[in-house]
């Protein structure tokens, strides 16, 4: 199970507690988290289910490369951080 941590700044809008979820890719893990917390989904993903423009996701300290399909691999004990990009101001 991967560990998923959300930026504190999102909490003002929608509760996103730290979560444990299964999955081999960022997509699978995040969709499992959002299945339990559906309101949070649109705060992180856009209408096409890609990562929102000014959001970033790190897996074990590495920024993911595939922002559209979220196909980056996740290990059994990975930690995923869902953060804001400073590009958003």
């Amino acid at each position, binding site marked *: 199970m991967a560990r998923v941590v959300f930026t504190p*700044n999102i909490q003002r809008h929608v509760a996103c507690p730290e979560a444990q979820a299964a999955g081999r890719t960022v997509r699978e893990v995040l969709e499992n988290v959002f299945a339990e917390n559906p309101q949070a989904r*649109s705060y992180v993903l*856009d*209408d*096409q*289910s*890609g990562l929102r423009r000014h959001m970033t996701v790190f897996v074990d300290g590495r920024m993911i490369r595939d922002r559209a399909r979220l196909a980056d691999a996740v290990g059994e004990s990975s930690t995923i951080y869902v953060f804001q*990009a400073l590009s958003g*101001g």
Partner: protein
Amino acid sequence: MSDKLLVSTRKGLFTVVRKAKRWQIAAVDFLGDNVSIALVDARDGRRYAALDHGHFGVKLHRSTADGWEEIASPTYPPKPEGYEELDMWGRPLNWSTARVWALAAGGADEPGVIWCGTLPGGLFRSTDQGQSWEMVRALWDHPKRKKWMGGGADLPGIHSICVDPRNSRRVWIAVSTGGIWFTEDAGASWTQRGEGMRAEHVPPELTHDPIAQDVHCLAQCPAAPHRMWVQHHNGIFVSSDEGRTFTEITGVDPSTFGFAVVVHPRDPDTAWFVPEIKDERRVPREGKLVVTRTRDGGKSFEVLGKGLPQSHAYDVVYRHSLALDGSGDRLAFGSTTGGLWVSEDQGDSWTGVTHTLPPVYAVRFA
């Protein structure tokens, strides 16, 4: 007469009320959040607020008995696999709501219907007070929609929605930039309107093309829906045939440039504008903030400045930031530099409510 205003700003939604003949801020909701527009549905009193959270996207909230609740946001359909569409900058166009730029209640005979205009150009309709939204595909899929361009923003956007008070299935929308579009079957099919408007910012062969027009704001007279007023990037235009053809109004002092227009609810010949120096500066002329008013269909205009700052005023009034109440007597407008003014005599005189709001994006009487 309305005693309440909803003021959407860069940093929250302000409720301004009239008490003991004075207008004052009574409540602040969503403090710190970017409120792009709000709607008060006269049919049931519900309020809607569109928030742009930047990183976290666009969200809609609806008033409850004791506060607000988040409701569904208009969501673009999945882009077909392999489908390529570029925006005017040559970048892939993301089918995703970038801003809610128009909210309008449906007709009196269709409770629960709300229309929503967005960037990058999608129009949405809800039949359940915003619980769910459906994109108006006939407009989005119209081949000419791809000719829409950015105007005021990088992406095209629907900013004006007028529902015919005689027949709710007839709706006009206006696009920056993409001109005016009309449906008479509740969105199932669309035709371009707006012959006669003129765009100076495009090559001569496109100057009079209705799709090239940067309509800043479209307003329809409720009691005489054949009359439509347009504040356009190039000036002021008026139509007496439901937007089929427009006539340009010229020679208006101090300027015909601006963003907003409102029309009297019963007198189609009376309309108000907030003029600015055109394009190159976009500030009030000579630092004097004024409103212009015609009472004769655009043949003549009065310049109204009593109570408004008449030196070193750099207020810009955006397209949704001038409001008129149902009586036709009370007006209000808010500015990019945080000013808010109210008139109770059709603009003859104005009272400043505050000069310290965040940048104002929309003003509506509640």
